[in-house]
């Protein structure tokens, strides 16, 4: 009897299906690879074949990947699911994880990091042979880290919060390294634990990772929890001034590190004064508010979808207006700033108040 696992790939791109089938057939467990170019066909195959793993694209005509996944979750709760998408968007990642997918992978990353992707798939295919429960988790990061350590896991936890991405390296239940927003080691670990929400995924362990954290994880968790409690306590006047000064210094450092010229954050109307860093003029704040209002009004009239950003440029600089939570941010960059400014702005804004 053929004991090979069956993998089903769902994608509307025929070339990609053929390429993926060739790639996945070379996995060490030699799975049988089935393909479908639309959601209806994929669901029909799942009804008739004992498939172990579904690899699903997101952007497809008629029935998109998220629709397929929500149906699959109800009809085939035991099926492992992987999203393999070209959409590098954290919102889609969160929505996919909320539907209980086991792994979310970007197509470009699959091509550049094929070895790790294959290891993840092998691990998912093999996991059915091991006893255990699975489900959708909504736990604090502290709980997740403690669980991983208690079970003496070796893994890399990739944690994302909007555009911010961090990683924790665990080896035999010990935390050996952390990385977040340019920081490494204990400082990064503390910064990650301050995040209140986000998504996480397990990647294969990296036993050769250089160790930067030597304290036991419980001691670190306790210290961080104490720090967070103290921050939450009402402060005396001196302590408040010190805290405000520290925040100001941190924000200026962040501004300089990212290479931005200025950041202006505007609270909702009537909820306080704009916060201005890197410029003396508050006049651009007025423009940012007008720009956000015009964009919102125009978007509604044209039925063009949500406002992503408003950008402007002249010979000296480029500016971007974006909404984050209930605030409007205006970020100024030098005219010759390189890289993806939208992504850089999004990251800067997401880390601003955290």
């Amino acid at each position: 009897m053929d004991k090979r696992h069956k993998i089903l790939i769902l994608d509307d791109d025929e070339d990609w299906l053929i390429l993926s089938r060739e790639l996945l057939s070379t996995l060490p467990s030699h799975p049988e690879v089935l393909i479908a170019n639309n959601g209806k066909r994929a669901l029909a195959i799942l009804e008739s074949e004992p498939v172990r793993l579904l690899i699903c694209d997101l952007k497809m005509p008629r029935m998109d990947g998220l629709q397929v996944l929500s149906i699959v979750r109800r009809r085939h709760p035991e099926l492992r699911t992987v999203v393999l998408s070209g959409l590098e968007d954290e919102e889609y990642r969160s929505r996919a994880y909320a539907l209980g997918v086991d792994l979310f992978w970007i197509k470009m990353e699959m091509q550049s990091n094929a070895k790790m992707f294959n290891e993840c798939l092998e691990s998912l295919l093999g996991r059915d042979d091991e006893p255990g429960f699975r489900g959708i988790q909504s736990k604090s990061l502290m709980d997740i880290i403690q669980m991983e350590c208690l079970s003496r896991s070796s893994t890399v936890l990739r944690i994302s919060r909007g555009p911010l991405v961090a990683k924790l390296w665990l080896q035999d239940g010990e935390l050996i390294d952390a990385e977040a927003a340019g920081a490494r080691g204990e400082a990064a670990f503390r910064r990650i634990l301050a995040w209140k929400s986000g998504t996480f995924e397990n990647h294969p362990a990296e036993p050769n990772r250089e160790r930067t954290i030597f304290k036991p994880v419980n001691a670190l968790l306790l210290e961080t929890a104490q720090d967070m409690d103290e921050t939450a306590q009402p402060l005396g006047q001196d302590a408040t001034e010190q805290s405000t000064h520290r925040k100001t210094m941190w924000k200026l450092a962040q501004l300089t590190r990212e290479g931005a010229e200025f950041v202006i954050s505007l609270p909702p109307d009537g909820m306080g004064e704009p916060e201005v860093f890197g410029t003396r003029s508050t006049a651009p704040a007025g423009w940012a508010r007008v720009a956000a209002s015009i964009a919102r009004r125009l978007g509604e009239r044209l039925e063009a979808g949500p406002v992503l950003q408003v950008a402007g440029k002249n010979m000296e600089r480029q500016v971007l207006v974006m909404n984050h939570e209930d605030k409007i941010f205006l970020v100024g960059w030098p005219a010759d700033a390189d890289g993806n400014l939208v992504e850089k702005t999004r990251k800067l804004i997401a880390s601003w108040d955290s």
Partner: protein
Amino acid sequence: MGFLRRFFRGRAAVQQLPTGTVTVDRNGEILTTTVSSAYSRNLLRDIGRDVLELFREARSAEMPLAEVSLHFGSLHITARELRGGAIIFLLPQTVLLATPKNSRS
């Protein structure tokens, strides 16, 4: 036909997104356009006026801009200042838009 209309008249139509280029003068009046004539002229005028307002407000904020762009979920509007008026590029962001083969979805 009248019989069918009784059942279907209440259904809202999906609004088309504009695609093409528009030039507007300093008062927001349309000078030339390549946008389909089926698209509402009033909406095109609204786009022109809003874009000019963005340039005007930027000048009064001591931050004159040569180009502004508004990015919506399904439409990108890019406008360049043109001697008081503007040239505006409208580009819908739809899945059916022709994209290079290597930008896989």
